[in-house]
């Protein structure tokens, strides 16, 4: 029997696979496709203090082996998420990781304090890496000092463990990771999207109304693997990895790199059943590799030779 369970701060996961934030809404749509209790966890869409209406469309552009999005953190705001979305998810036996975003440190602290009280929110994920909003967001993720400060403040109010989501758009990902670890982060999630753009052949103008967007999908996997490989050797807190995952084999590559669990983003749009399919496939691949416990994969790319 293969053992898919993973224990992380605040999270007892049945298996290491969860949908990534922003790629699964608040679960309602995908609940029509399968029982959400099958998932390791759910990372819900970014929640801000006030409702956000996001960017103008077009918000989506396809690229080679990837896509750009510029949603702009559209969400109904903390109050509605607490009142309408989180209670819906209580019907399922699955821990929720609440993705928190804001423009100021105070915003993050406010949302974190409240949303961490929801009974099914088992952890927070601070989104300091959204490339699609004008203020806040990514600036926290690219400056280690601000990232440290934000993490520290949120830690003082959160009732659940705090994970910080790192931006790949930085010169030194290890420096940011160490800063948020020093700020008290219980874990890291990485990576958010790469900052990209596409132009229309006919008009010459950006395809996205927001001009630039976040690049996700298989195209970015090598960058994600590299960053997790580097960071996991320099920090002690666990990592939830993401970026282009499509298959059970991809999941194992992320674990090898040093992630303890993974999130699937873009692939949900192409295969609504991708998460349960990967979860079902994992034991088979583990057997082929002669591995009984999924945790044995973690960090194998460096640990076995350390």
């Amino acid at each position, binding site marked *: 029997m293969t053992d898919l369970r993973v224990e992380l701060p605040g999270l007892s996961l049945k298996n290491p696979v969860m949908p990534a934030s922003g790629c699964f809404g608040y679960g309602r749509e995908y609940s029509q496709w399968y029982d959400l209790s099958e998932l390791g966890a759910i990372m819900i869409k970014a929640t801000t203090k006030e409702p956000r209406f*996001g960017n103008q469309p077009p918000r989506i552009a396809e690229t080679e082996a990837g896509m750009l999005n510029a949603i702009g953190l559209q969400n109904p705001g903390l109050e509605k998420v607490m009142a309408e979305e989180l209670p819906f998810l209580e019907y399922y036996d699955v821990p929720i990781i609440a993705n928190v975003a804001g423009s100021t440190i105070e915003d993050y602290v406010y949302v974190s304090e409240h949303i961490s009280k929801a009974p099914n929110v088992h952890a927070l994920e601070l989104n300091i890496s959204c490339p699609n909003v004008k203020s806040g967001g990514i600036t926290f993720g690219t400056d280690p000092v601000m990232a440290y400060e934000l993490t520290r403040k949120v830690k003082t109010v959160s009732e659940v463990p705090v994970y910080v989501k790192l931006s790949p758009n930085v010169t030194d990902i290890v420096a940011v990771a160490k800063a948020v670890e020093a700020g008290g982060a219980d874990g890291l999630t990485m990576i958010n999207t790469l900052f990209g753009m596409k132009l229309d052949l006919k008009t010459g103008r950006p395809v996205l109304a927001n001009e630039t967007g976040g690049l996700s999908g298989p195209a970015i996997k090598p960058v994600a693997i590299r960053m997790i490989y580097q960071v996991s050797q320099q920090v002690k807190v666990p990592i939830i990895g993401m970026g282009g995952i499509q298959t059970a084999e991809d999941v194992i590559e992320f674990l090898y790199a040093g992630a303890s669990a993974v999130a699937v983003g873009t692939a949900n*749009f192409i295969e609504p059943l991708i998460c349960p399919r990967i979860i079902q496939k994992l034991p088979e691949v583990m057997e082929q590799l002669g591995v009984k416990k999924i945790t044995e994969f973690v960090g194998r790319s460096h640990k076995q030779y350390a």
Partner: protein
Amino acid sequence: MMQEQMVVKKHSSIAKDIYEMVLAGDLVRQIARPGQFIHIKVGSGIDPLLRRPISIAELDRDRCEITILYRAQGKGTKMMAEMNPGEKLDVLGPLGNGFPVDALRHGQKALLVGGGIGVPPLYELSKQLKARGVEVRHVLGFESAAHAFYIDQFSALAPTSVATVDGSRGTKGFVTDALAGDGWNFDCIYACGPAAMLRALETEYPGRRGFFSLEERMACGIGACYGCVCRTKNSPDNATKKVCSDGPVFEMGEVLI
């Protein structure tokens, strides 16, 4: 709503870059209304990565078949154009709300206006309206005679005017030119086509009852990604609707086009 490997039953080119494809599968049973769409994964790899939304143009419940009409323009649709009968196509569907056929009663009048690749969903709509005894007229716009398609099929159902940009068939100009001076007093307008066409219709028929099918770039197609939103009109809180799951059909005046 389901995912299915539908079987390509027929496939042919019917106008410049325009293809007609008949697909068979169980998801046909779930189709509720004309104007719903399917979300197609072309090829089995990552190129192209995303699904393509295509309207259901005709429905044959008995044979569990649908017809789609599409323009091979970009990477995905060009790959689709290479497919042969017998091959399978990965489809999500049926998606979206579709046109309300029951907005009209027997004897009422419906004007159906389609532009380019907005024409397809109107075909099944027209058939269903006719079946209810609604009196239908069509106005279809195309780039040129070479790009025009399904005119005979539409004409067989109801009176059909055609406009082409270059005047090579029907009225020269846009659908609005073909409408001009047509004093026919419809009860409801149903339209699908470029944003400019829909805006022109709004201007032309202020305060009239109508339903527009919109297009927007989509990722998930099921309401989860917030990629395809449009803004609701006159709403104090800037609220948005998702074209894929709240639409693609909206009541005229409901959303900003």
